[in-house]
């Protein structure tokens, strides 16, 4: 009984962690704008946390570069299963405008598996919320499969 309670609350109240992985800030401030009164994703039970060990969903903005790929992998590994990853913005999806720079590896999926891609440069808060909602569907599926 306790297990099904945890399973239900996990998908209904996911905790997210946001990592800026070399973005230009455009997507980051839009992720933060999602938390503030106009968009307010807390109404879906979503809380932004600072500790990867507490988080269920990882929001990543920006390109992966040679220096931060280890940090990104480390944060992903610290999160407990099941977990979902959402790549935000053109840079997070493919490398975007910076894909040809010498220090850029590419999109987030070069390092960790990605569940949802949110397009835009920068992605609008509506698109990010939409991406998170789609991600929650996949996350609920993972929770279901985990047991």
């Amino acid at each position, binding site marked *: 009984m306790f297990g099904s309670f945890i399973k239900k609350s996990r998908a209904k109240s996911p905790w997210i962690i946001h990592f800026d992985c070399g973005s230009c*800030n455009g997507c980051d401030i839009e992720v933060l704008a999602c938390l503030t009164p106009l968009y307010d994703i807390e109404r879906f039970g979503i809380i932004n946390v600072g500790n990867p060990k507490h988080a269920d969903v990882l929001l990543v903005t920006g390109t992966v570069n040679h220096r931060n790929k280890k940090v990104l992998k480390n944060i992903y590994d610290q999160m407990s299963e099941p977990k979902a990853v959402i790549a935000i913005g053109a840079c997070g999806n493919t490398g975007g405008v910076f894909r040809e720079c010498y220090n850029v590896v590419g999109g987030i999926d070069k390092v960790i598996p990605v569940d949802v891609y949110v397009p835009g440069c*920068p992605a609008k808060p509506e698109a990010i919320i939409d991406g998170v909602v789609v991600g929650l569907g996949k996350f609920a599926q993972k929770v279901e499969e985990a047991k």
Partner: protein
Amino acid sequence: MATTIIPFGPQHPVLPEPIHLTLKLEDEIVIEAIPALGYVHRGLEKLADIRDYHQMIYVVERVCGICSMIHAVCYSQGIEELMEIEIPKRAEMLRVIWSELHRMHSHLLWLGLFADAFGFEALFMQFWKIRERIMDINEATTGSRVIVSVNVIGGVRADLSPDQIRWILSEIDGVEKDVSALQDTIMNDYSVKHRTVGIGVLTKEQAYELGAAGPMLRGSGVAQDMRMLGYGGYSEIDFEPIVETAGDCWARSTVRFREVLQSIDLVRQAISKLPEGDLAVKVKGNPPEGEIYTRVEQPRGECVYYIRANGTKHLDRLRIRTPTFANIPPMLTVLPGCELADVPVIVLSIDPCISCTER
């Protein structure tokens, strides 16, 4: 006493961006802070080799999303000076309007994050609520909320209709009213003052010697504002740099708070002096061989662009020096001697923009 080493960052709840500080502590007191940068380095200056000088506007806007408009203004001013292009007066004033809107949204964003750094979440929400009105103006006038992309070499690509101008004026009246309502909280509240007054004091001499920029410098009593150079439309606008003398975190937040109100005034002045005319002039050919140095005032301070052209459509070299880079040495000077709990407040008080710094 034994020394403890505490890593701060790169992923930290108070920082929207990755910067790493190795803090050496004795008890609760920081004795040394060693920075490690490079987590956001992309190498976009090198893109000048493969993108032509028009396309580079698109790239420099993405140096930093928060002050993208002002980066684009700085870059286009440089190219225009190099190619000896005179842009229409209306375009100059429109650039001022969007630049000041960007400064307002950047400062409101920072004031919110700063409130969050000392745990005042309600104030964070209030500032970000006000900021959304400015984002609405950006979206309605240019089509994008954050990276507005209105600059082109030779002018701007969007215009303000009389209806939009009336609406902007009524919106910024509302913003002014809402921001003024928070003045007492951010400046005089007992718990806010407890966390900011006397924390991270940078004297006037130190600020000048270490080359601080922007609100960090003005918060220490040096009246230096690049807008006073009168670049673009600023030559026709009347204002004084905002200066505080205390040099602590309180002074820096007060400078930024007062600059929000100043920017509202500047937008009003620019709108009242908005001349009729074209939006842009046609640009032909490539930048001639030569080099140019331009500087503008960003929300975070002085931003310098060095551009060297070789007569082709690609630039020879593009070098960007951003204000946060200048503000890191002063930050490292004020960190030793502070308590560990004050580190997030001091780090945020320079308004770190790491993607600017590392490009």
